[in-house]
């Protein structure tokens, strides 16, 4: 066994013509991929006035409700704002397409038929393609030219369990685990270069291969939250009306007994 550790010598040409090129190609492809993805990404679609209004309508009632237990505004103003909002929500004034027509089904729109949602999904697929194709090409290249190559010897011993990780493509049962095969070197780079990319391209880079692990649909949904979950604002508004009513019950004006508070503070309150 002692003999086997010295029985293998690596040609320095393997280092110069296989190990370094594979690493370099992978880094460069990652950087290139980052820029291709940047090119492919279309600018986020501009929202229309109506869409913004719809999205932000809920905020109005949330702001009103946030302070309702100690509201800064007098009762008549609070009531008028609250009831106005409630009416507007009931009538669908804030809906982007205007108030709903009486009998239209209120099913949430199918994301596959909505062109806007489809766009988002396609963008996700495109970036996904840019991610996968170069990796497949590189892996094919390594498999074709360098199959079964042993590239590097780790400077520390490892247990046998690492054999399948470090010696993929070299099916020898009794070679020391410290030797790393070309395919395994590819995988080590594939997962290990993220830190380097973050250093070169900044933390928000598109070369990060850990994202390849997601399914395309998950990636699309993560990249653009709006198309994935087309919200039915009409329903949300209806639900918000209950909240408004609830807060109206909780409402009290901060100025209701402010004069007694002040008199107490200045110790004038005798009653």
């Amino acid at each position, binding site marked *: 066994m002692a003999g086997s550790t010295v029985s293998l010598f690596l040609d320095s040409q393997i280092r110069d013509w296989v190990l370094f090129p594979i690493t370099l190609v992978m880094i460069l492809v990652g950087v290139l991929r980052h820029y291709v993805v940047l090119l492919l990404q279309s600018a986020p679609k501009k929202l229309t006035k109506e869409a*913004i209004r719809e999205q932000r309508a809920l905020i109005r009632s949330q702001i009103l409700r946030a302070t309702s237990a100690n509201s800064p505004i007098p009762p008549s103003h609070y009531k008028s704002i609250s009831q106005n909002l409630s009416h507007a929500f009931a009538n669908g004034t804030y809906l982007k397409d205007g108030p709903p027509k009486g009998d239209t089904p209120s099913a949430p729109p199918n994301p596959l038929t909505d062109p806007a949602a489809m766009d988002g999904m396609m963008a996700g697929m495109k970036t996904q393609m840019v991610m996968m194709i170069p990796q497949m090409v590189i892996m094919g290249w390594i498999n074709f030219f360098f199959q079964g190559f042993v590239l590097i010897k780790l400077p520390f011993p490892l247990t046998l369990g690492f054999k399948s990780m470090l010696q993929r493509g070299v099916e020898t049962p009794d070679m020391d685990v410290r030797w790393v095969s070309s395919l395994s070197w590819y995988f080590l780079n594939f997962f290990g270069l993220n830190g380097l990319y973050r250093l070169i391209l900044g933390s928000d880079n598109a070369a990060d291969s850990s994202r390849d692990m997601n399914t395309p649909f998950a990636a699309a949904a993560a990249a653009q939250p709006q198309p994935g979950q087309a919200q039915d604002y009409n329903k949300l508004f209806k639900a918000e009306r209950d909240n408004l009513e609830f807060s109206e019950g909780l409402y009290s004006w901060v*100025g209701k007994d402010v004069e007694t508070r002040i008199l107490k503070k200045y110790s004038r309150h005798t009653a």
Partner: protein
Amino acid sequence: MELNSSLQKLGAYQPRKSEKSAETLDHGIALLRTKAYLRQGSEGWEELEKVTLAALDQGNIEVADQCLQIISDKFPDSPRVDCLTGIRLEVTESPEVALKFYDELLEAEPSKAAIWRRKSSVLRRMGKIDQAVTELSTMLDTYYTDVEGWLELADIYASCQQYTHALQSLSHALLLAPQNPFHFLQFADTAYLASDIPLSLKMYLQVVDMTDDDDDDVAPIDQIPTGITLRAWFGVKLCTKRLLTDSKSQHASASHTPAPDPDTLNKLDELSGERLKTAHLNSSPLKEEKEFIEALSSMIH
């Protein structure tokens, strides 16, 4: 988020000649000469934007144009630069030209809140108050959270004596920033103008309650009211005086706010008078405040 807030600031910008802007301009001219902004990264560009605004404040169009040129070369499509260009146009060109510029921008992208704000303020300066109000209120209907916008709307309404509407806009500002005593003070002033005295009294008291105790251990009664607290006590005094002398005003509340009972009113009147006297006797070294207190004293005695 940062972009949004700076856009909001630009949207609310109003030219005024102040010492601070003169200072910024002096500093900015040196900055332009040495081209130091190139070395400061993003802060340098922000500095340049401030210099542009300061130059416009001071009427130094040359420097403003120079800055604007540099900024727009660096960021050709930025909405912030668009807004800045608009402000520059407002200063020298006729309002119609600026309005046309804003209209074109809005047509390309109707959801730009800052441009919208600027458009309504141009309209206001042109004297087309009704259009300015329509623009501003549709904008606020979409971008509800713009406190400055609500305040400006209230200001417009108040300038046309539409105090009820002004109060409504102010109440939105209060909802959005319930921690700001100045909004309460403005609300109280407006309510006083709308001759809703009970409401006004409550709001003045609210301001007092919010501002009179600092973090130090001195009880509020031993403190000398200054600044906004003094102002609020003055308001309280005015309200109680009016409520005590003019019994009709007690029931003339558009918001149906009940007036405090006569006993409380008397106590409040006494207390506010005393607070104002304290301020008068220990009048602070600040000049403006002194004048204000002098004016008050004629009322108390």
